[in-house]
């Protein structure tokens, strides 16, 4: 089955630690795509969506913490983009559970569009800044998140 998003270098922000986290987001979206295509049912899809939301919140918290540490000048705008996405997805989730709608490809493609645009546009801006401030692109160690998020 073809993947919704195939990871390639165009999605890399040039910092391994962040790339690893983005790859988890991509993987969860691909899992959701597969679950919808194979008709796993709304409950199974919602479980993946919840996992995606949980993970996304943690990932956003990491990014925002780094932005504060590095005094990233566009912190407020970037944080607002995160908050708007989480609010949107939670609103969609509410509609699914309270109006008995099914998770559809429409939602999935919206998330794909948001993620790819956000990484290639907003995230690459902060990564350039972090690297210019001395952050290392590679640490030579396994990304912390992959140790606790299987």
């Amino acid at each position, binding site marked *: 089955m073809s993947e919704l998003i195939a990871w390639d270098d165009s999605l890399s922000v040039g910092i391994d630690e962040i790339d690893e986290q983005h790859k988890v987001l991509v993987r969860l979206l691909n899992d959701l795509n597969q679950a919808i295509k194979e008709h796993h049912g709304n409950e199974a899809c919602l479980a993946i969506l919840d996992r995606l939301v949980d993970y996304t919140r943690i990932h956003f918290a990491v990014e925002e913490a780094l932005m504060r540490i590095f005094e990233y*000048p*566009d912190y407020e*705008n970037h944080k*607002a*983009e995160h908050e*708007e996405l989480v609010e*949107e997805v939670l*609103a*969609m989730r509410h*509609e*699914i559970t309270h109006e008995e*709608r*099914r*998770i*559809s*490809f*429409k*939602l*999935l*493609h*919206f*998330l*794909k*569009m*948001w993620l790819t*645009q956000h990484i*290639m*546009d907003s995230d690459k*801006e902060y990564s350039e800044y972090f690297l210019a401030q001395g952050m290392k692109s590679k640490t030579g160690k396994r990304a912390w998140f992959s140790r606790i998020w299987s």
Partner: protein
Amino acid sequence: MTRTERLAEFHRSLERATAEPEFLDRFYKSFMAISPKIQRVFQGTDMARLKRKLKSSLHVMTLAVDDAPGADDYMRFLGKTHRRLNLDPAHFDLWKGSLLKTAAECDPEFDDRTQAIWAEVIGNGIELMRSGMASRDSRTSPE
């Protein structure tokens, strides 16, 4: 002309227009000259960031006209996110006007047909954004 042909023509025109290094600067200069309110909205904004956002928005607008999955919902979502800029929905028309004016100045092959294609692509995009901005219930539907 089919939609595919019109989109291909839009891409060619966009490429010619943006080959002019001053395209984005000229656009923002034209747009901000319209009113003090617009100037205030962008006061202190990182222009390099703004230009990257514009390029990205133009890209998604072409996807929306091409019915790419998720693009219309994403444009509506962008409209909602513009609420925090305290923009008036009417500003979208001014934005479109400035963009078409700049394209006409920078694309040496710009003619009435090209203008109609730009108006179609950009008009569709700003209608989606305006609908997102206007309605608090316009979040992307799971249907």
